[in-house]
């Protein structure tokens, strides 16, 4: 896909998105008009600003046809396969990590993600990888769970129970 095509698709996509926003506001029964003596209703702000978004998207599409913008003249690929592979792997790995958080909990997910990135993509030594992973997990636990008293997600009950053991230890002996 060339940058030129991407520009058009983005313009149309954002136009549709803006129209969906307007439709949502309208069908939710919010007042999009003027209330006498009180000024604008609750729907005025989102409705008319979404209309503005729709109009600027139309403007972008018109400029695409007239080839005004640099992007609409650019025939180079929108996605360059070489550096993009790295971007794609990083994003997929990140998505997998967030998904794993809901199953195995924050700490195991973080360790797997960091370990994968450093060992497989970065080709760091096992020693370096393990030191960084363990350091990161302890750092996050200490800073967020301990100092900021945030309860980070622990995943399914079986993993959560395992973790409670560590938490109990902290409350019993370290506080």
């Amino acid at each position, binding site marked *: 896909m060339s940058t030129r095509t991407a520009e058009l698709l983005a313009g149309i996509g954002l136009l549709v998105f803006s129209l969906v926003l307007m439709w949502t506001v309208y069908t939710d029964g919010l007042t999009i008009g003027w209330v006498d003596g*009180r000024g*604008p209703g609750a729907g005025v702000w989102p409705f008319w600003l*979404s209309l503005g978004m729709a109009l*600027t998207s139309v403007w972008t599409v018109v400029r695409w046809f007239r080839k005004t913008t640099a*992007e609409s003249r650019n025939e180079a690929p929108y996605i360059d396969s070489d*550096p993009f592979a790295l971007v794609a792997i990083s*994003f997929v790995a990140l998505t997998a990590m967030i998904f794993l958080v809901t199953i195995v909990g924050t700490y195991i997910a973080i360790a797997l993600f960091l370990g994968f990135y450093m060992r497989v993509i970065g080709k760091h030594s096992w020693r370096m990888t393990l030191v960084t992973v363990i350091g990161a997990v302890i750092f996050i636990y200490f800073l967020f769970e301990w100092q900021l008293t945030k309860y980070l997600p622990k995943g399914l009950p079986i993993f959560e129970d395992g973790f409670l053991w560590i938490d109990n230890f902290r409350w019993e002996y370290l506080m």
Partner: protein
Amino acid sequence: MGEIASLLGAGLLQAFEPLNFGMIIAGCMAGLFIGAMPGLGSVNGVAILLPVTFLVPPTAAIIFLAALYYGAMYGGAISSITLGIPGASTAVATVFDGRPMAQKGLANQALMAAAVASFIGGTISIVLFTLFAPPLAELALKFGSQEEFALMVLAFATFIGLGGDDIPKTIFSILLGLVMAAVGFDIISGQPRLIFFDMVEFQRGIGFLVLAIGIYGIGEMLWTLEKTGGKVKIENVKTTLAEFKENLGQIKKYLPTTSLGSALGFFVGTLPAAGATPASLMAYGLAKTFSKDPDSFGKGNISGVAAPEAANNAASTGSMLPMITLGIPGSPTTAILLGGMIIWGLRPGPLLFANNPDFVWGLIGSMYVANFVTVALNLALIPLFVRVLAMPFTILTPVIFILCFVGVFATTDRMFDVWLMLILGLGGYLLRKLNYPVAPAVLAIVLGPLAERSMRQSLISSRGDVTTFVNPVEHPIALICIILAIALMLYPVYLGYRRKKEREVAKSP
């Protein structure tokens, strides 16, 4: 004047309290590091680290983030000079002469000039800040909702008139931010708005931090991975004491352009759309124009390093002026700081000076102290930071992603927001590839609720009369802001017209 002096004295004392002073050092170190890493700038650092600052009281938190802000301005120069890649967009102009100097083997001279110029820029602008802030805040105390709304319109107009990005895309970005800010319960009628797919999670709205971390954490890292592929080459730097003394003697060479760049940077920095990047580019142009030897620019002229570095530091301080006094951020970084202040339970704007003098003057005092700390740390640790730059992206990238995830979750306690951050980050990255500017959207989502409220309050108090915003008798300041805003929005139209005219003149013989 005497009152300001005593308040400033108290602020300076506050800056030396152990916790606050520790925050200055930690912030400067973090800023130097983040600024030096290619692809990460002050805005990324402030967005990613804001959740961590809930650990300390608000004054210490803002001192940390402010120190990080100008630390990053210093740090940007390190990679501009040694790698030839700007460490942040604010250090782009530093590459022009910093890189040639490094290639000639003068890297340490360039680094030192950058550090000293940053110090001069920071100091001049903090003095200007101290002089301008109290009267501006006092003036702003008289502002009603009409003036507030008109000021915000003016802030957005600066993006259209001066932002320099594609105009329809800039407007789209602003409007998208404003609409995202409207998701959730309406503040006046209490009705739920834009609850997509009937998901109850949207009732709480889209937090600005979710968007900011999505865009400046996830999106920015993806962008950097694509641009650099993780490959960088470092020019060698080593410093000896004798060279250090010799370099100090160079200062008078670039002192005049540096001072000029500092004042320019401060005023450009106060404009919401302009900020440190254009300020440094303008200062570079100015230094070149006033130079006796303009041809040497771009080939390693030391003034070409000093002027933009002074300007970007001055601009970072300048951008805090409207944030503290008017509640309108002067840059994307200060937009995130402003959002943070709301989370800390403070109300940004003129009342801050009256209600939270400790906070305001503690911040101002810390800026004086942080300037000294940063220049000292910078000069002492340049070799260390240069080595840090060799840190492979395969460690930095996953660590930043992890911090983004934990930071968002720790702030909102919802996995829903983490997923939203991921989607917004990817969307921001894809749109940025098509030259959609992302900064206006972040500013808009922070200012959106305030803008809508002030607009509707004005209209309720005037019983639905729209002319209340331009009433020359009751709201002259609002009128002036609206006129300025319209002028700014028409400015690109005028530029286009003039360019067309020039082309016609060029065509006709």
